[in-house]
């Protein structure tokens, strides 16, 4: 049976579903017998879940506009250096 320390070392592979079947079986066997590790597994899983989808991906419109303008300037500079015609509007 896994020790609690070994359980912690293998926790990520279990959560990311990257561990092999034997490892999953050993972890599942450990948590049925160790309530503390069961709670750690459950709350770590919830920690990851709670971050997914909650933190917004927002980009203020003015930040976006300034970015596009800066890119346009860079494009003109690059074309100028290369001796190409500037951006056509």
């Amino acid at each position, binding site marked *: 049976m896994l020790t*609690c*320390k070994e359980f*912690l*070392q293998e*926790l*990520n592979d279990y*959560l*990311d579903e*990257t561990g092999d079947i034997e490892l999953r079986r050993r972890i599942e066997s450990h948590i049925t017998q160790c309530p*503390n590790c069961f*709670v*750690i597994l*459950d*709350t*770590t899983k*919830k*920690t*990851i879940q*709670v*971050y*997914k989808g*909650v*933190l*917004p*991906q*927002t*980009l203020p419109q003015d*930040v*976006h506009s*300034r*970015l*596009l303008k*800066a*890119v*346009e300037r*860079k*494009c003109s500079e*690059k*074309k100028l250096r*290369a001796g*190409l015609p500037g*951006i056509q509007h």
Partner: protein
Amino acid sequence: MKKMPATQEAGIFDESALVAKAREGDLAAFNELVNSYSRKIFRLAKHITQNDEDAEDVLQETFLKAFEHLGDFQGQSKFYTWIVRIAVNESLMKLRKRKSDRSVPLDEPVDTGEDTVVREIAVWDENPEQKYSREELGQILDEAVQGLRPAFRTVFVLRDIEELSTEEAAEALGISVPAVKSRLLRARLQLREKLTRFFKRKGDDVFAYM
């Protein structure tokens, strides 16, 4: 009628075609890439720098450098992974400048073993997020991430918020896969501990472990 870009007509986001066009100086193609990834890059920069102004600087620097050096992009990795790497480097430079501490972010954290110590174990409420408004929850989660050391925070943001694979995160950070795994475990355990203080079920005991 305005003609749609070929990639939109097909309904598919063909990244390599856009990159190829952008490399030839096609601004519209590059802007499509900007529009696809600017939100993610801004969020990533904001998480690492913890500052709106720095995040905007990082956002601009990232896309300007990407545009300037598109010729160096070999296409062996995804375009997104490539710009994440630029954004992470720019963000870390901001942190270093601010803290005047060149050793802060990408050095290997000293392994004292303390980062994997679990101090609090308590069952959480069934739906802990429902105890708080969306804004309050966002603040709790943000503050918890901000409390992590930069080396751990960066890995957590790339893996669990931006959903890069372990290998992509390693490539973006220029560190090994085992280093990503080790930092991610510590970050997750520390966040779990911080969030337990908010989300634990009332009346449950809290005790030390390991």
